[in-house]
């Protein structure tokens, strides 16, 4: 193969260079031990920037010549050839773009954000490795390679969450993320092996082809698809495997932005989209996806309402939006899910990076009760955060509005109206918590201890502004998006449109009413926002009513849910599993007494048990 033939190459033949560049960066940083120097960051940024350039080239080629695939043989299992290869199609091109672009911005941002850290170079090294594995994950043309990358991505996430390992909570969180996602990964690998058993290949397109021809037994396909979905649930933090994601906020904020908001956590969404035809063939499986997505969206949103840590609010919001994406997938509209993935990636990365900027500017404060009134001190961050928040809340004409609206229409089309109603409630809640965060952080009185707050340097604000710009205009690519995926345009359903708009704006208004009333006196409100004063005073009853509702219903429910989340899911299911594994390990070791005759007894009993079992045909 002529790798360096500078005549026009197919995109797919160049695509692999993007992850290769990042791996090279990682190897360079680690092997030259540039853990403390700034050169590490330069290498890493150059690598990811060239990745982005490759994306542009690949994208251009793709527009000309369409999907392509290439593979080389790795080894054979029996008569099956295991190949490694890359595939370029709509899905992977989109992901390639999102990953390289967001990663590039986040890394630039990190240069300033992380500059005080020791292990600065290590941070960038792992970032490069992460980028490489994420790129391999989306480019892989077969499930095996995908799985390989999937594991590597998880490893990088582990390393980055635990970056401040000196902090106990950080290493605990890293461990929890590791164990929780692993539960899903077991399912994923078994699912893949199940598919391989029948198909005799790991090649994604071949497997899909076989499935569509009816080559799989129904039960096998169903089991495989659900097991793979379990993997997606772990990675994409779907209820009840979502518990690791809020804790993952112990990592550095840029990491949260890149990995735990924009890229890695959407791997599950990507995976389901990638093998979407399998879900279609294994019919009821999409219902499972929809139900899981919907419950995730609602539950996480209600928890986000009562969180006080800014990053946790964003984290639960991420979980909730991942739920929306799953819901869209479950409603049969993977193009829409990908679109929401796209708008959400920019908006949420923007929010996280803005939160990081707040953090940076105020000397590490993340509790929204201690913040407030920062809009004067940090104007750029204020603007960018607002854009992100409004985009997520679904305010037209920002990106989030279009994608959320598309999801609502897809749900209305593909699922029972009840799904739609619940989804509207979740959307409503997401407006409320976004505006809550916005108000509590940037409006109101500046706390005396925050007088020193300052705007962040240009290396931090520049990525914010770029992302904000994209979030502003992201919605406009919608029609191009659907053409790109050859998807049908949804007929605009005005009822749906109106309801979803109502949910967004209503949520904003409600949040505004509650949170500005609670923190600022009404006179201040009257003085500063004359227009709103009437609403606020007129809405007093509403205010009390909603407050009551929130106190008595939403809060109670949310507390119960979050209690459930803490105790049942977190402590019992996740930590409990972990602890019982450890406990049994620690107990079992005492079997090993060190005494020869005990060992001999175990052997003899073993022999007798085995012999008699066989004799009596017990098993």
């Amino acid at each position, binding site marked *: 193969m002529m790798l360096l033939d500078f005549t026009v190459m197919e995109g797919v033949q160049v695509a692999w260079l993007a992850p290769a560049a990042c791996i090279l960066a990682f190897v360079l940083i680690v092997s030259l031990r540039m853990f403390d120097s700034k050169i590490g960051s330069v290498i890493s940024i150059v690598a990811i920037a060239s990745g982005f350039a490759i994306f542009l080239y690949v994208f251009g080629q793709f527009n000309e010549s369409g999907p392509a695939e290439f593979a080389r043989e790795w080894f054979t299992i029996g008569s099956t050839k295991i190949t490694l290869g890359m595939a370029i199609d709509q899905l992977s091109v989109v992901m390639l773009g999102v990953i390289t672009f967001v990663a590039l911005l986040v890394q630039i941002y990190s240069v300033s954000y992380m500059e005080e850290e020791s292990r600065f170079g290590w941070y960038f090294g792992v970032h490069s490795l992460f980028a490489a594995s994420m790129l391999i994950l989306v480019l892989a043309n077969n499930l095996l390679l995908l799985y390989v990358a999937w594991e590597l991505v998880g490893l990088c996430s582990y390393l980055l969450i635990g970056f401040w390992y000196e902090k106990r909570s950080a290493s605990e969180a890293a461990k929890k993320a590791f164990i929780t996602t692993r539960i899903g990964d077991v399912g994923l690998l078994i699912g893949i092996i199940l598919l391989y058993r029948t198909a005799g290949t790991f090649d994604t397109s071949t497997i899909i082809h076989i499935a569509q021809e009816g080559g799989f037994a129904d039960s096998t396909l169903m089991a495989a698809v659900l097991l793979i979905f379990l993997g997606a649930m772990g990675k994409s933090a779907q209820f009840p495997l979502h518990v690791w994601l809020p804790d993952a906020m112990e990592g550095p904020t840029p990491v949260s932005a890149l990995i735990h908001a924009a890229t890695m956590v959407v791997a599950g969404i990507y995976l389901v989209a990638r093998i979407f035809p399998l879900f279609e063939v294994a019919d009821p499986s999409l219902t499972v996806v929809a139900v899981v997505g919907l419950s995730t969206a609602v539950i996480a949103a209600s928890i986000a309402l009562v969180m006080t840590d800014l990053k946790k609010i964003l984290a639960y919001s991420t979980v909730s939006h991942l739920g929306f994406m799953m819901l869209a997938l479950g409603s049969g509209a993977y193009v829409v899910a990908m679109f929401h993935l796209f708008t959400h990636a920019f908006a949420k990365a923007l929010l996280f990076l803005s939160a990081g900027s707040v953090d940076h500017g105020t000397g590490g404060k993340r509790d929204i009760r201690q913040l407030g009134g920062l809009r004067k001190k940090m104007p750029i961050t204020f603007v960018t955060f607002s854009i992100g928040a409004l985009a997520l809340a679904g305010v037209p004409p920002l990106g989030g509005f279009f994608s959320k609206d598309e999801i609502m229409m897809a749900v209305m089309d593909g699922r029972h109206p009840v799904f739609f109603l619940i989804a509207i409630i979740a959307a409503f809640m997401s407006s409320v918590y976004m505006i809550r965060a916005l108000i509590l952080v940037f409006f109101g009185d500046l706390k005396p201890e925050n007088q020193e707050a300052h705007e962040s340097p240009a290396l931090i604000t520049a990525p914010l502004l770029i992302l904000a710009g994209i979030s502003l205009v992201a919605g406009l690519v919608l029609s191009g998006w659907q053409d790109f995926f050859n998807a049908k345009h949804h007929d605009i359903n005005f009822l749906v449109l109106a309801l979803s708009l109502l949910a967004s704006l209503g949520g904003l208004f409600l949040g505004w009413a509650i949170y500005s009333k609670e923190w600022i006196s009404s006179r201040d409100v009257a003085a500063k926002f004359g227009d709103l004063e009437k609403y606020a005073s007129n809405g007093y009853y509403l205010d009390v009513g909603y407050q009551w509702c929130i106190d008595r219903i939403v809060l109670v429910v949310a507390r119960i849910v979050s209690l459930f989340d803490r105790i049942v899911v977190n402590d019992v299911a996740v930590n409990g599993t972990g602890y019982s594994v450890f406990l049994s390990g620690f107990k079992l070791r005492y079997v090993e007494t060190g*005494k020869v*005759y*005990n060992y001999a*007894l175990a052997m*003899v*009993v073993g022999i*007798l048990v085995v*012999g*008699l079992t066989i004799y009596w045909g017990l098993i």
Partner: protein
Amino acid sequence: MGSTQESGTEGGVLTESLVVFLIISVVCVAGGLGVVFSRNVIHATFLLLVSLMGVAGIFLLLLAEFLALVQVLIYGGAITIVVLFVIMLTKSDEFESLVDNSQKPLAFLISIGLFVVMTVAAIAADNGNTVRASLKFSDLGHSLFTDWAIPFEVASLVLLVALIGAIVISKQGEEE
């Protein structure tokens, strides 16, 4: 392949050979029990010798004269002596307090269980054959050096390794 010899009779009558067998068996088993129950290690070693000589007698009953000879020579002439040497070298008075360990009851149960299983297996598989065949020395030798030449050579290496090993290991404590 050698001569065959009628022995025993029908109907479970006590024949001479059966009586001999029973006597030798009692010696074997009693010796064995002595080995595992004796409180004195020197006694245990001698009782082992008794039991193994009984085994040699069993070999004779089974018309395996060569094996009986080997048994007497190796166990009586070598192994027991070596064990006694070692006991002398180590502190034999320690053995007075060194009797049985804490899992003795369990050990008893397991051994009885194994014995029952093995006996049941033996009885179930019994084909009632009462004809014994003996083997000429020369046949045994021939077979050992032709058919079984490889294991034979390997066995010699086993002995060599054990020899070297024993020397190396017991020399370890010196010159320290």
